[in-house]
């Protein structure tokens, strides 16, 4: 950026070049048409069932009769009534699982991305091997880990332990967490890697020339510029983990208080054929996730404001 050829006005505005009001309207129209396919698909496939589910949650379950409107009765049942033990157990288990797996996935995924970003021979193969856990269908992976965590399985054999992993609460927790981290750290690695690769190498060179240490380069260059990718990765991983279903369902079936918000919703909706109560649980999960997303966004933006103020005009 030290050398600039003479070019016409080059103010880096957020949002691009200035527009006339007619240009604005044309842009808005174009944007509208570009967004239509997205709108239609999401409306039919997601919005309609969600609205229906919320409506159902206000009715009572009456399998062999007619359901009636009961307002928030199902919600009260889930939060403080007969369903509350199950609900809150699932709530805390899911939350703890989310925090633990996200932490490990971030650290491991980020490290993997950093390493994959370096130029060395065989990099392609390393990248491919990193994607293996993620590419294996969840059903197969769940079976694999279920057998690995069997009392006579590989995990106990390798670490010389005799833990009955899926037989009690905390071992089950760590078994599920490990299986999940193994399977999805690559996802984070991939997104962070894409973000890392946008960072021009010249920035690092310049910093090295100025005597910045590796740690300083990491904190001042890498972290701020990769923040966007990390936030997207964190956000979407969090959405997924809060709704985790396959792994706990296959590995423990919710035994030993390892139910998650999605397993209890599934059991009520599909197994017990209680669509209304099941929808209630899903809606509660939905609100919980929305609140969490807002929190993460708020925390992330606060950071972004601080760091861009410190950076000055680039």
């Amino acid at each position: 950026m030290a050398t600039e050829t003479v070019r016409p006005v080059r103010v880096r505005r957020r949002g691009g070049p200035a527009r006339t009001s007619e240009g604005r309207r044309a842009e808005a129209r174009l944007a509208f048409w570009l967004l239509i396919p997205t709108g239609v698909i999401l409306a039919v496939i997601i919005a309609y069932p969600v609205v229906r589910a919320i409506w159902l949650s206000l009715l009572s379950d009456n399998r062999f009769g007619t359901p009636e409107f009961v307002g928030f009765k199902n919600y009260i049942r889930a939060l403080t009534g007969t369903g509350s033990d199950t609900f809150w157990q699932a709530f805390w288990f899911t939350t703890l699982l989310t925090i633990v797996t996200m932490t490990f996935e971030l650290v491991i995924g980020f490290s993997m991305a950093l390493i994959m970003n370096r130029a060395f021979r065989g990099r392609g193969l390393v990248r491919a091997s990193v994607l293996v856990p993620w590419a294996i269908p969840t059903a197969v992976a769940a079976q694999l880990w279920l057998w690995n965590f069997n009392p006579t399985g590989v995990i106990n054999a390798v670490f010389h332990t005799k833990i009955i992993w899926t037989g009690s609460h905390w071992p089950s927790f760590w078994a599920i967490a490990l299986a999940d981290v193994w399977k999805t750290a690559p996802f984070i690695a991939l997104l962070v890697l894409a973000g890392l690769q946008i960072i021009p190498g010249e920035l690092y060179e310049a910093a090295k020339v100025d005597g910045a240490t590796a740690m300083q380069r990491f904190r001042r260059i890498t972290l701020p510029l990769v923040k966007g990718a990390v936030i997207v990765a964190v956000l979407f991983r969090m959405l997924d983990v809060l709704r985790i279903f396959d792994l706990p369902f296959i590995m423990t079936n919710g035994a030993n208080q390892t139910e998650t918000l999605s397993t209890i919703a599934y059991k009520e909706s599909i197994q017990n054929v209680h669509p209304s109560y099941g929808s209630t649980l899903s809606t509660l999960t939905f609100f919980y996730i929305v609140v969490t997303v807002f929190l993460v966004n708020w925390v992330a933006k606060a950071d972004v404001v601080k760091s861009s103020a410190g950076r000055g005009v680039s």
Partner: protein
Amino acid sequence: MAVTTAPAPPAVRARPASRVAGFVRERGWLLLGVALIVVFCLAPFYWMIVSSLKANPLLDQGLYPKNPTLLNFREVFSGENKFQYALRNSVIVAGTTTLLALFIGVFASYALARLQFRGKKLVLGAVLATAVFPLITLLTPLFQLFSDLHLIDTYPPMIVTDISFTLPLSIYVLTSFFSEMPWELEMAAKVDGATPGQAFRKVIVPLAAPGVFTTAIIVFIAAWNEFLIAYTMTQTLKSQPVTVAIAKFTGVSRFEQPFGTIMAAGVLVTIPLVIMVLLFQRRIVAGLTAGGVKG
């Protein structure tokens, strides 16, 4: 970022010897890191391969197959399982989903990132909100919808639903990529005499390549791995993808678990994916060097 332009001698006054030592040490750490990554990612996969080559993996817990056999792989394609149809279905569903989701996603992200209009935050928020609802509750109403349209056991329900699940993430990733791209590029290209179409193709597209291919991989794998919707909406090998087919593998009796066959199917399903990803990876790097921030 304090960039000093003082013409001082290089701040690194290290002597050659320790510089080499530093280089070696860095390489050493790098190698260790790589080794750890590879072991972490591949060890369970190794176990999967080994199990698929054993005749009786449930009983035989050895670290390598003493009498490796292709029995499980034969079983996967046998008359009972007919896995080749499931593979065909998965490829069609995941491939179509990826193409369509990218198409629709690029349109939407371009609008969100590069065009100005009111209510952007609302749109982004609404898109994100659709990604939040637990899948379970969508199953019954969607089944009813597709059943009434006589589309059960066909490709469309899976494709359309997979697109709707992967759109939010695609839009977010692509939007963040499109908005990071400097505005000057388009203008510079125009100044250099390119038409908008050429500017789009020769400047924007190569730069967007990493984002687009990353999104493509994510969408493809998500569609490939999808289970619940496929399981609910399909009934025969006419449309069942691999995830459902594997769930229906069986041994001789109701209770027997064909662990070896499942592992063999898992291996078969993963390797093509990995190869495909390897190919995409090259394009990411190519895209970077082609467009390039040329300063």
